[in-house]
């Protein structure tokens, strides 16, 4: 006998199913193939757009941690990738294998602290280096202020980092050293924007409100364990972004980037340190000198400070965030002002005298017969902050590098080999509408949808070269490559200014890639956006683009502001799908 079942849900259409008392006997029936829209072109999206990382750089899983298909072109590539992944995922220690060498001062003890679940950092109410998920770096600099036409204060390119602490300041140190910055002296608050300088109301014309918050961060001068202590400084926060797909960005050619700069230059002011408008060519500051003297165009980090992934944020971070040395980095990420303060601290000297005599002590390199000699050693050893001061001197004091060339190579296979997740729902009507609107209101001017990668003859650092030589291989064939891939990162690889309240140091920030960001809530439990996680959702992120009328993106954001609710939702859904 049939019984009618009905299922209703608030907000859902009523739908009917039927079942019978002998369902169990009949079973559910076997699976029948359905139609798939994935990978199929439609009236808005090409077939390629389902693969934002191209065929060689996309995973079809919803994942920020998958290897690219190109990893399989390497001998034993998956094992290399998995071993490299370990250095990203797990915490470093002072001296315990397999991840040793943490300290003497560190920003974080692991990569995963700042890239939770491989994603973007999560917004924090306090700065604690031990909080896993805190992806913030402290940016401490001497401000030179300026104002937009509508009164937004910002700091200019003439706003250098303070020199007393490292560019990415450390708040942790091994006993007995005092961390360069005492976390107890760091203060963060998140006030609301009460009024937009651009004049836009904090609600849309249909009445839907939006709320903008921004970080106010200060560090007490006494919190700096340095000599001298800094003066006249401001502090900002910069959060991590996802690490997937960076190998693909490395494969974009300098010529193609140059064409993009040249195309934008007539219409928007570009960072004069990057682009010489009069010469219609790269400015001198756009060139970066790599470790072997090779000159390359800067393309990585918000501030455009790095030119190769093999010398980029991750390759550096595995050394300077942890202070774990390797063969081509036999020196510390420290400052003379910190070394001096530690050498002058009686508690530090006393502790080393009491605990450093044993040859097995981690403090033994600093140990000597007299306090004055200990102090001298502390200042010398902690001050080994470049190859000239370190190198063989470092090895003589501390022994072999803490990360082997092989381990670093595996780490870079992993880093370069992280895939971009495939796009989702590109056949959905709202997503298609969102894509049309995204273009129509001008977002694509900066969030350039597509690039074609070049030959991808990537630059190789000295550590990987040393490893390649040790196994008789060509270093230029040991990492995943992405030649001539059509990719969809949604960035122009150019810096722009939004002139937000308490904006990024100098105001210039490279357009952040949008690919894969829509999976953040699903994969990491958070979806904070913009460089300091001030935006809690897509709408807030977009409306920050309209904070000042001087923003490069003001006109586009204004058009977004004037869309209907349905249209705004479509744009958001599009952003969540690419």
């Amino acid at each position, binding site marked *: 006998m049939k019984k009618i*079942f*009905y299922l209703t849900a608030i907000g*859902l259409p009523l739908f009917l199913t039927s079942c019978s008392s002998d369902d169990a006997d009949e079973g559910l029936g076997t*699976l*029948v193939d359905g139609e798939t829209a994935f990978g199929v072109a439609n009236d808005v999206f090409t077939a390629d757009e389902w693969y934002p990382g191209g065929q060689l750089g996309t995973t079809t899983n919803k994942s920020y941690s998958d290897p690219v298909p190109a990893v399989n072109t390497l001998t034993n590539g998956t094992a290399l990738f998995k071993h490299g992944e370990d250095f990203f995922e797990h915490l*470093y220690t002072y001296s315990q294998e397999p991840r040793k060498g943490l300290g003497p001062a560190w920003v974080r003890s692991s990569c995963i602290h700042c890239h939770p679940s491989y994603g973007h950092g999560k917004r924090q109410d306090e700065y604690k280096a031990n909080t896993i998920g805190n992806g913030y770096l402290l940016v401490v600099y001497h401000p030179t202020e300026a104002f937009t036409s509508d009164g937004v204060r910002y700091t200019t390119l003439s706003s250098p980092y303070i020199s007393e602490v490292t560019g990415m300041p450390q708040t942790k140190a091994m006993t007995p050293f005092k961390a360069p910055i005492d976390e107890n002296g760091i203060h963060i608050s998140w006030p609301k924007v009460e009024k937009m300088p651009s004049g836009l109301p904090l609600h849309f014309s249909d009445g839907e409100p939006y709320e903008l918050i921004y970080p106010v961060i200060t560090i007490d001068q006494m919190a700096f364990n340095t000599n001298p202590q800094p003066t006249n400084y401001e502090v900002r926060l910069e959060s991590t972004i996802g690490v997937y797909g960076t190998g693909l960005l490395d494969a974009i050619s300098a010529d193609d980037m140059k064409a993009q700069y040249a195309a934008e230059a007539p219409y928007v002011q570009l960072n004069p340190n990057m682009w010489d408008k009069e010469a219609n060519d790269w400015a001198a500051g756009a060139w970066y000198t790599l470790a072997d003297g090779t000159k390359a165009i800067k393309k990585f980090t918000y501030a455009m400070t790095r030119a190769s992934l093999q010398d980029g944020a991750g390759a550096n971070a595995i050394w300077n965030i942890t202070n774990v040395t390797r063969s081509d980095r036999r020196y510390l990420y420290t400052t003379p002002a910190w070394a001096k303060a530690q050498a002058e601290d009686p508690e530090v000297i006393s502790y080393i005298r009491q605990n450093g005599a044993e040859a097995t002590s981690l403090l033994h390199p600093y140990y000597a017969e007299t306090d004055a000699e200990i102090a001298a050693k502390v200042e010398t050893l902690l001050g080994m902050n470049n190859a000239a001061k370190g190198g063989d001197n470092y090895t003589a004091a501390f022994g072999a590098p803490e990360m082997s060339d092989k381990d670093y190579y595996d780490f870079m296979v992993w880093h370069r080999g992280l895939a971009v997740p495939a796009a989702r729902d590109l056949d959905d009507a709202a997503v298609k509408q969102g894509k049309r609107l995204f273009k129509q209101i001008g977002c694509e001017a900066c969030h350039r949808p597509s690039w074609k990668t070049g030959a991808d003859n990537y630059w190789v650092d000295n550590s990987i070269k040393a490893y390649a030589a040790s196994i008789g291989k060509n270093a230029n064939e040991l990492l995943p490559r992405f030649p001539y891939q059509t990719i969809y990162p949604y960035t122009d690889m150019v810096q722009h200014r939004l002139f937000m309240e308490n904006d990024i140091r100098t105001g210039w920030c490279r357009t952040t890639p949008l690919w894969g960001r829509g999976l953040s*809530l699903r994969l990491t*439990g958070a979806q904070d956006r913009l460089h300091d996680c001030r935006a809690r959702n897509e709408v807030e992120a977009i409306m920050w683009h309209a904070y000042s009328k001087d923003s490069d993106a003001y006109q586009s954001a204004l058009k977004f502001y004037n869309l209907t609710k349905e249209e705004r939702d479509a744009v958001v859904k599009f952003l969540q799908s690419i």
Partner: protein
Amino acid sequence: MKKTFLMIAAASLLATACSKSDDDNNQNTNNGSTTPQTAEEVLKAKIGTASAASYSITNDMDISSKTWTAADYSNHAFGETAMNGCDALINQLDEATKAVLKSKLTPAQEEELRTTIAATVCHVIIPTYTQLADAAVKLQQALGDLSATEIKQSNIDEACAAFKTARAWWEMSEAFLGGAASDFDVDPTIDSWPLNRDLLLDYFKDGKYSDEALEDASILGFHALEFVLFRNGQNRKVADFQVNDTYKGFENVPAAEELKYAQAVAKELVKRCYQLQVSWELTPTANRLAVVKAAGLDYQTKNKLSFSWNMINAGVSGSGTTFSSLTDALQQLLNNSEGSCLAIADEVGSGKIGHPFAEGYIFYVESPYSYNSIVDFRNNIHSIENIWYGNPQGAKGQAEHSLHNFYTQVAPTIAKSVETAIANAVSGIAGMPYPFVKYVETLSGKKFEDDEIVEIPE
């Protein structure tokens, strides 16, 4: 208000109100009425029952009591079988997921899959975390705040036993790290390895540890407790805590202070285990939720859902779920790259076994001190088995709604392949010579030179 709406939505989706009540066995009655009163009641009636949670670590005697010859320790075949077993399981889990993804599910199939996912949440994930939390409480209570002069050997033994039980439940939860464990970074917080012993020593150098030590994940959780409670695979003796430690580098540390540290770490572990439990419970257990809240720990998704309702509501528009569809939730359970059955099979095969066995990275042997590696690996596969069979006893248990039942009906060949792969992975892992650290030492010709390893059994 929002939560109420969402729960109603979920309940409505799962409710099956028959037009004519002629089911004598209807367990969904409430004061004589067939109308469910709450979303949780509706859900529980819908998902039926599963065998009660139980697990005994004495079952692992079958691993440690086997006799192995010198030739066995030199035989690569055992490790290859274990790794191949994991690889095969990965492939089968992937195939099972993709078979559903590429299909057009009938309404009945879709309803059963939704019920099955809900049942899996309620009968596997929540009980596992509850058992984990209960064991952590036992561990914490055994230690209490007893001083070194007050504590008895029975307290230490009880704590050690609870530690092993908690450890087993933790390993049996690693197939569903996706969700609260991932979003709240619980894994690195309670299971970071190796223990950063020199950092721990820093905190004892002044004779007493500081609360600041409790903020660094590299000296917290299971491995910090293991260091204090066990030495050379044995429970520490009560007399040990009344003198200084004899461990290299720790000779000036009063073991009584280590005991205090373990007590503090155990309290932190309890909070994190509570966090996992209440994050997944349909209705959080009040007293445990209070502890989580007091600790300032999160327990809901960004959209203020419990992780259970978040998964049960998968694909429900307006519910606030992070899952875009029902099959998205299935993917999270079975083949997601992180925090799924496939992910832990991969971690066991290519990482926990693969790094030391296949690649010779000897220091990647996990749990070398307690010789518990193989048990840990097997428990990881048991976590997959439990998800598949919809109960905490895996193939030995029963569940009215499970992926086993679902796939047996909709894709019987795949179901058999998955189940064969699970069984083979378990037997392959258990078939490796014990202890794992000695096996990989013999094969690689490398020594696990660590102060904590005094002697590898011959």
